[in-house]
């Protein structure tokens, strides 16, 4: 049995350059089983790049990404996905030419982990994110929040051991935000481990037990959410960023 303190995901020395720019610079952090870790930082600080490195969209120049006890750094995305790393995208991506049901089936069909679990069903996953009875509805007809829900259902279909959310709550109105926060909390209550990039402070405070803060590709803070959000270095990084001023 895995103890609750065993890290599900451990990132060490992760580095990625784009030409002269070091977008992710010697990053390290861990996500433990059943916790939600916030990945924060001003615009352009390298959060999405970090997610892309973990999920295999980008190849790291250096560093380790250890999932369970396997170093997956540099693996092709499809293998990482099959190992149980699921994600959503900063700019929501659904398969618009397909039904909602097929969007979820896409997450189920190519993955041994998902397919052997007979209790995972398309309708169950749709209902799980609040899209019950949407199975045969074209994905292109969905509203913005429902597209976000569908994308989440597709990620959950992978039966993830860790879920990477890239600003999943961005762009929701205040009442939708409450729904979204409740949905993510319910995933955590089921024991899912989550790494979430987020700017919405209310969501971070109510969901994340720990936060890692990036600035210019580097980790500038890592600790319990309250402590991190009071950290002068973090406050300065945010206030110093002209986009947020």
């Amino acid at each position, binding site marked *: 049995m895995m103890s609750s303190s065993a890290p599900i995901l451990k990132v060490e020395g992760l580095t990625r350059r784009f030409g002269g720019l070091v977008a992710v610079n010697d990053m390290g952090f861990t996500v433990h089983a059943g916790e939600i870790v916030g990945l924060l930082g001003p615009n352009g600080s390298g959060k999405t790049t970090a997610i892309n490195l973990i999920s295999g969209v980008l190849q790291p120049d250096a560093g380790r990404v250890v999932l369970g006890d396997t170093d997956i750094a540099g693996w*092709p995305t*499809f293998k990482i996905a099959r190992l149980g790393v699921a994600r959503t995208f900063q700019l929501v991506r659904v398969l618009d030419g397909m039904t909602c049901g097929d969007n979820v089936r896409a997450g189920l069909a*190519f993955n041994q982990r998902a397919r052997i679990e007979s209790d995972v069903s398309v309708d169950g996953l749709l209902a799980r994110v609040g899209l019950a009875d949407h199975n045969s509805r074209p994905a292109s007809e969905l509203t913005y929040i429902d597209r976000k829900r569908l994308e989440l259902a597709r990620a959950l279909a992978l039966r993830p051991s860790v879920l990477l959310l890239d600003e999943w709550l961005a762009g929701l109105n205040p009442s939708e935000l409450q729904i979204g926060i409740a949905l993510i909390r319910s995933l955590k209550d089921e024991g899912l481990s989550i790494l979430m990039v987020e700017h919405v402070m209310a969501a971070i405070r109510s969901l994340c037990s720990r936060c890692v803060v990036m600035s210019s590709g580097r980790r500038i803070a890592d600790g319990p959410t309250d402590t991190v959000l009071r950290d002068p270095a973090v406050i300065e990084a945010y206030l110093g960023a002209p986009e947020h001023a």
Partner: protein
Amino acid sequence: MSVSQLLIGAVSLAAIAGLAVVPSLVDAYHLALGITLLQFTILATAWGLFSGPTRYVSLATTAFFGVGAYTVAVLGEQLPWPLVLTVAAVIGSVTSAIVGLSTLRLSGVHFVIFTFGLAELVKQLVVWFEVNKSRVLGRYIFLDITQQDIYWQLLALAVIVFAVGWLIARSRLGFALRIIGEDETVARHCGINVTFAKVALFVISAVFMTLVGAIMAPRWTYIEPSIAFNATISFEVVIMALLGGAHRVWGPALGAIPLTLLFEFLSARFPNTSTLIMGVVFLLIVYALPSGVVGLIEKIRQFRRGSAAQGSGT
């Protein structure tokens, strides 16, 4: 099995049986036309197998067709016919696997240009080999294969290509390709081995093209690279598949049949301007029917359903 599926099955069987007796009913001219129709139907359908779901435009059709034809020119008299076809299929699949693995990482436009260049490259390789090694410019094909034999082989191949397309569309591979066509990044994140899926389909499609070339070869008694590797075929196949609509297995055939007849008519009536007219036809198709005949049919159906729903609703 539902009633409508049984009906479709019965109609298809009757159609195949009907087509099979055509050679004994028609004259040589119409038999030749039938062969051309089958040739383009298979080529366009095979093209659509790969390009429909992936939306890659391949101009490599003639490369594989030519490889098939040349295999027959070289080995036709050495080996029994089924073995010749097998060798052609193997060469076609190896060639396409190499091409696929090296090019399918390319983005759309680069892929089009590469496949176009590929046909020329293969042709020049054959020319070089023939001139420097075998020291012949062309080859004679004297095989005991009649026009009727060609027709029947192509008919069988057409049945197979439709069956394979039908099976793929219902398989996990087909589902993977639809997802890849929608969003490759999402496909990877769903655990799909995108490269494998694309190469697999590219190879399957290429094997059919190679076999068409091989089966057609005995039709010419004399063959040389410029005959076997004719770039026009690649373009015609793209036009046909786009007219029909490549996102359904039976779509390309709906383009191949009328366009083969049209090209045949044009080149007989206006031998000097037929290429020009073909170009205009191509432009019109892309402009007026972006999703092909299939798209048009689906739109009409949707419209009917929509108005029926409105009618019953009020």
